[in-house]
């Protein structure tokens, strides 16, 4: 119990950031029209590709004789990049179709 409390105090700023971020995440997309659901999902998908940063760090810290770490890290970087690049490109393609709409607008 006390441990938890100490942890909370120690990480209170982190906790604030998390809570506020949750509010932002919810509020920010509150008004999305349903035709945008799929592109929005796809865009969000690309954003969590930020996990790649973790992969890069892992990779960069791996001792050059620790082949397991190197291999896994390498794999992680690849899939992470897939998530980022693929995600943003697919989203952009989906959104092309809204281009025309803007014209008349």
């Amino acid at each position, binding site marked *: 119990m006390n441990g938890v409390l100490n942890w909370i105090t120690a990480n209170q700023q982190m906790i604030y950031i*998390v809570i506020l971020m949750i509010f932002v995440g919810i509020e*920010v997309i509150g008004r999305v029209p349903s035709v945008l659901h799929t592109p929005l999902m796809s865009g*969000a*998908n690309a*954003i969590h*590709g930020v996990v790649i*940063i*973790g992969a890069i760090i892992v*990779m960069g810290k791996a001792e050059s004789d620790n082949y*397991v770490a190197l291999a896994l890290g390498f794999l992680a970087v690849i899939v992470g990049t897939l998530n980022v690049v693929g995600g943003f490109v697919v989203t952009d393609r989906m959104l092309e179709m809204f281009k025309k709409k803007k014209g008349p607008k």
Partner: protein
Amino acid sequence: MQLNILTICYLIGSVTFILGLKMLSNPATARKGNLIAAAGMIIAIAGTIFLYEEGGQKLGNYGWIFGGITVGTIIGFLAAKKIKMTAMPEMVSMFNGMGGACAALISIVEFNHLIHAYPSSDLPVATILIILLGLIIGSVSFAGSMIAWGKLNGKVKDFSFKGQHIFNIALLLVIVGLAAYLIGWTPVNANIIFYAIFVLSLLYGVFFVFPIGGADMPVVISLLNSFTGVAAACGGFLYDNKVMLTGGILVGAAGTLLTILMCKAMNRSLANVLIGSFGGGAKAGPADAKDQGHYKEISLSDSAVVMSYANRVYIVPGYGLAVAQAQHACHELEKLLESKGVEVKYAIHPVAGRMPGHMNVLLAEADVPYDKLLEMEQANDEFPTTDVVLILGANDVVNPAAKSDPASPIYGMPILDVELAKNVIVNKRSMKPGYAGIENELFFQPKTSMLFGDAKKVLQDLVAEIKNL
């Protein structure tokens, strides 16, 4: 100094993610939003590669890093470019899975570091906890997304066994139990337990998605999407890395809300989607098909005549059009009729098809000009002055039960009021129900006439007929 700049890169990243997501939720700015988020991502990644230090120690293995990034970029770019527009949800699911895998891999490597650094008796609890969270959520999201991907491109069939849900819950409990054991008792064989958790998580992901109807995959993908977000956030905690943390949480929260909004649009509850009670409905539906009275059929040639002498023809596309891949044939027909001076437009229901915007994507692929697509409200205003409504593989979205029958599972969902038009021609292959698995009295109304057959074939024949008129 460099670390300070890195902090700022991360700050920029976080803000662009928020702005990007905000702009993505508005048609006018969506595309720009996506690019902004992408720009922020590049800044954050570049910053990490060149500026990150740990204990004054810069990152190494640049060769591997750039190698991996190059490979990933090429594959990802090509895959995203080549894929057919209608197959995009699959792609999203695939990429989402990759993100999950990435999170899981990170956890594995970090865990290995840890058990070499510490005697497994006194592993740092908090760190282990976060590593495990990343591992479990990442793996579930990875495995689940792969199944969803398989279902969407037909490689994996729906499949469920009795007591599936009990089994899933049990599985989950085991995973949690093992994790608790690993953290609380830090046993000598931590290694084995860790990998057991890994495997079981993958398994859970598979069984979590298996029983859910293929049609609900968009919802599931959106849910797994938010999972991956949380997994990424775990990474953020692990490295005390703000951009991973904020980005992850942002997606976690927004993704969860989006999932709920998607369900609302089809007016169903998330629980109902996950437990997949619609499947049951589907069976129940056709049973009481008999007592619906009679429907009348119409011949190809007659439909050809009716349409080519009409002033205004509205086309209502549905899931069937996508199944039949008939979008091009459909565009054909539209152009032909227009050349005969008929005004042709498409009435798009927000949840027609199997993903939001499905019809827009489908028709966009056949280069149907965007201004020919009417949103539901607009279309409903114009139906009364429409001579012929041609329904192509749509069913639930034109089912009057949504208005009239409180008992119906789709009751309350706004629909296209095609009954207001003078004539309604319905093309589908049979009298079978659609996604919601319920009868559609529209088909039995005097105004309505059925034109059976595969949408693509029928449309091609129609075009031929009209040409020979």
